Structures are given as C-alpha cells and as structure tokens.
C-alpha cells in the first residue's frame, strides 16, 4: 500500500547554521498510529512543522496523501490537521467561533452538524459559547484538537498531545486517538511520555540529533531489543554479590534483599539454568522470583545513548586524526 506520508532526504538547517534534520527518510502507513520519540531538540517538532508547511525545508521532498507539500500545497494541507505542542488559542473567541474559523480556513463549507458532533465527541458542546480564556488547560487542549479535526483531515499530527494534562484527561485522549484511528485517520504523535507510545503506537520512530535512528514496529522493537530481568527475592539480605557469582550479570538491590539477573531474550541460552544451579551450590535460597521485560523507555534511552556515544567516538577519532 502506498504510504500516506513519504519523506525523502529531508534536511533542515536554520539561518543560524544549526542543522535540525539530516537527510531524513520516513514513510507513514495509512491508518496507523506512529509515535515519534526523541529527546528535546532532536528535530521532532521541526519535522512535523515542515510537513505541515510552517517551516521551510532546506532539502528533500515530502508527499502527503500523494501530494507534494510544496507544489500541491492546497491538496496536501487540506488532508492534514495539526495539534501543536503550545496551547496557542484565540483567547477572546468562543469555542464555536474558533472551530468554525478553522474549518473555513481549510477551505471547507460551513457544516454546523459536523462541528456539533465533533464538539460533543470531545465533551466541548456544553462550552461551545464560552470564551477560550475561561476554559481549563485540558479543555483548551480539546479545543486545539477540535480545531485540527474541523476540516475532516485524513492525517493528524499531535505534537506532545498530553503534555501538562492530568492522568484522567490523558486516558481520555488516548481513547479519543484510538477512536480516530478506527475512523480511518492516520495519527503521528510526538511524545515525551514513552508509556504513551507504548500504549498506543503501532510503529515507533526514534529521532536523535536530527537523524532518524530507527523506525520499527513497536512490538517487534520491544521483542528485538528488549532485555529481560529475573528478580530473586531472598529470605535474608546479602551484604554483596557473592564472589562465586561475580562473573554473572547480577546486581544486588540497595537493601540486599533482591538479586537481579539480566538476560537477552533473543539468546538461545539465557543462562537461567546455570544461575539457578550456582545459587544452589552457593546455598543461596530464594523465596520468590519474577521476570520483567524492559520498557520502551529503557530501549529508547539505550538507543539515544548508543547514538550519542557513537558520535562522540567519531568526533574523538576525527580529532585524533
């Protein structure tokens, strides 16, 4: 199937010389939820802003729903909705007026029935006549989403959609995003909350220092790169890892009551049998054990650190030469 967004060789260097994106290639599949992860300043917002037409690219090409975003900007942009990170709203406008303004701006004829349905879906109908400045932060966030959806886009960008919202609203947002996906909208979200990506995304992209480090199916990624931990709860605390077990990848919890063994789930020999045999030989008993897979957050941190040390190595090598 043809991707709904295709990014090829995208680069962005700002006037001050800062390179925000380096030769980024990315394809977003129709109907998926794609999470773009990356530390602050990695280039996530720049990438989104270029696709949406807010920032000019320095090089490369982007197609949205088959339309070049520069040459066929009208067709491309009418397919895209954007919820930016900042709560940028027209404080003195009413909810009804601002959402209708957005629909008109995107070239759609007025459709009060659709706007009513949208506001009801987002629990904003009761507030339709309220001025935006009178709304809570969470409500304002919903207004931003309503504005982005007012022209019935097939692609929705959510830049840090749940930044600063409470847990309940976050859950509601996740529910709403899933609902949108079911209605056929492709969703691209950037987030700092890794659990958000873990909870919702079909695929994950990691961007760091303007480079796309990886794009992978979320489950495959967690399977491929995940580590597992085996925790052994000891009946009596230990002062340290016994010398006879020092060669194993074992750590002891601060209170000495848990031994943690890390192993690679991809490996044919996880070493668990060997660990248990040697614990028995050392007469170390345990009263409980459990295993845990590494989270997306741990994978993400590992990837970013890996990329950082690689580039530092490269710099050191270049300096030595």
């Amino acid at each position, binding site marked *: 199937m043809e991707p709904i967004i295709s990014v090829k060789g995208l680069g962005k260097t700002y006037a001050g010389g800062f390179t925000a994106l380096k030769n980024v290639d990315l394809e977003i599949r129709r109907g998926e939820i794609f999470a773009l992860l990356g530390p602050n300043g990695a280039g996530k917002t720049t990438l989104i802003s270029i696709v*949406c*037409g807010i920032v000019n690219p320095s090089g490369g090409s982007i197609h949205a729903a088959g339309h070049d975003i520069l040459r066929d900007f009208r067709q491309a942009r009418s397919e895209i909705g954007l919820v930016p990170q*900042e709560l940028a709203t027209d404080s003195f406008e009413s909810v009804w007026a601002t959402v209708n303004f957005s629909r008109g*701006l995107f070239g759609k004829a007025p459709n009060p029935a659709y706007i009513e349905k949208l506001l009801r879906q987002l629990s904003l109908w009761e507030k339709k006549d309220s001025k935006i400045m009178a709304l809570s932060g969470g409500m304002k966030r919903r207004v931003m989403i309503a504005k982005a959806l007012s022209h019935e886009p097939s692609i929705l960008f959510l830049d840090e959609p749940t930044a600063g919202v409470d847990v309940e609203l976050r859950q509601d947002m996740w529910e709403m995003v899933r609902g949108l996906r079911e209605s056929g909208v492709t969703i691209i979200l950037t987030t700092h909350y890794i659990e958000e990506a873990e909870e919702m995304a079909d695929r994950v992209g990691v961007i760091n220092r303007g480079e796309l480090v990886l794009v992978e199916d979320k489950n495959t990624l967690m399977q491929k790169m995940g580590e597992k931990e085996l925790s052994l709860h000891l009946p009596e605390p230990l002062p340290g890892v016994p010398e006879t077990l020092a060669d194993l990848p074992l750590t002891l919890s601060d209170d000495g009551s848990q031994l943690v063994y890390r192993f690679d789930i991809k490996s044919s020999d996880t070493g668990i049998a060997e660990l248990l045999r040697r614990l028995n030989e050392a007469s170390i008993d345990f009263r409980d054990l459990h295993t845990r897979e590494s989270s997306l957050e741990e994978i993400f941190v590992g990837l970013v650190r890996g990329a950082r040390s690689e580039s530092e190595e490269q710099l050191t090598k270049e300096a030595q030469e």
Partner: protein
Amino acid sequence: MNWYGIRAIYKFEMARTWRTLMQSIASPVLSTSLYFIVFGAAIGSRMGDIDGISYGAFIIPGLIMLSLLSESISNASFGIFFPKFSGTIYEVLSAPVSTFEIVAGYVGAAATKSMVLGCLILITARFFVDYEIVHPFWMLAFLVLTALTFSMFGFIIGVWADDFQKLQVIPLMVITPLTFLGGAFYSIDMLPEPWRTVTLFNPVVYLISGFRWAFYGVADVNVGISLGMTLLFLLLCMTGIWWIFRTGYRIKT
C-alpha cells in the same frame, strides 16, 4: 481560490472590531470630532478661506486621511502581529491558503474597517461644517486605494514588529508627523521656499492633495501625480508582501 479561507480570516478580523467597538470606531470618531470642533468650528470661524474654501471644510479631507492612514496601519498591523505574538499563526501557515488569500483576508478586513471609519467621520463632519464632494467617484477611489495601500503597509509593519512598541513606532513617529506636515491643516502653497519644495518629498502630501481635489476640485499638486503616487506606494507595498511570503521573513523559519 480558497474563498472560505479568505472569508474565515475576514470574518475573524471583523469580529474583533465588533468586540472592541469603543476602541476601533468610537474613539477615532470622537478624537476627529474634537479636531472639527476646535479647528473647524472654533478657530476656523476666525480664519480666512483657503482657495475659496472655508477653513472648517478645507481640513475635512486631511482629517479623514489622518484617521484613514493611522487606522489602516494599526488594524492591519495588529491583525497579523497578534497571531504571531499568541502563536496562533501556525494555523494560517499550515492551512491551504495562498499568500494572496491571507493578505486578502487580513488587508481586506483592515481596509473595510478604516473605510467605514472614514465614512463615519465624513458623516460626523456634517454636524460641524458644510462641505461638498465635487468628484464622488474619485473621492471613493482615493478612499479605497489609500485604505488598501496603508493596510498593506500595516501588514508589513505587523510582520516586521516583534514587540508591541515597534507596532506603534511607525504610526506615531512617522505617519502622524507626515500627515500633519503633509497639508492636512494648510495648503502647501502657504509655505515659503525651500519648505514648499521639501514638503513635496512627503508622500502623504499627494494623498491629501488628491483627496481634497475629489472634494473641492482644488489641489496642491496635479491630481494625476497624486493618483500615480498612490498607485506607486500600493505597488511597493505589494512587492514588500510578496517578498515576505517568498522568504518567510519573520513568519516562517
């Protein structure tokens, strides 16, 4: 053409006028009325005619032009500056609207507001002084052209300004002095040389002169030159806006 887009921007900007009616309409009408009372009715009654026109009537075109210029600039500059300031500009930039459509929406609304204001001042003037309009078509043409041109100029200022102070600098420090010295209250023929020649470098002279010609059929400079200067300034503003959107100056990074 994204007509709905133009309409959305236009309606949004006009809605702001209705929300701020005192500031947008009542305040400029009141301050211009004070000019009519002081210079037209009070002092004007003790002054002689200029070019056969009573002083009160003579200053009407200049006073309308003063309001037209300052309101066109302030409406259009605030219209584009505020979305930049509040961050809502992202929506306009990401919408399927062309440069022309964005400018048509913002400048169209700003020009409409200042033209309505100009007409209100004209009606208000009738309460204080008698006047006639010899060339109503050209009066309207100068009104529309000046409102459009200076709304575009205001749009450029709004894009250029990165704080509220800069937004006020050009209207207060440049436009108001140029209007006062551009023959709003006197005929430039009353000036001695070399000031008369120096005044001809003031572009507002041509706007006021042309507008006054439309009212009374008399002008400080040839009406063709006035029209040409107005069109030239319009062209310059259009070029400036075209350049802004081509380069993304202070709008896009």
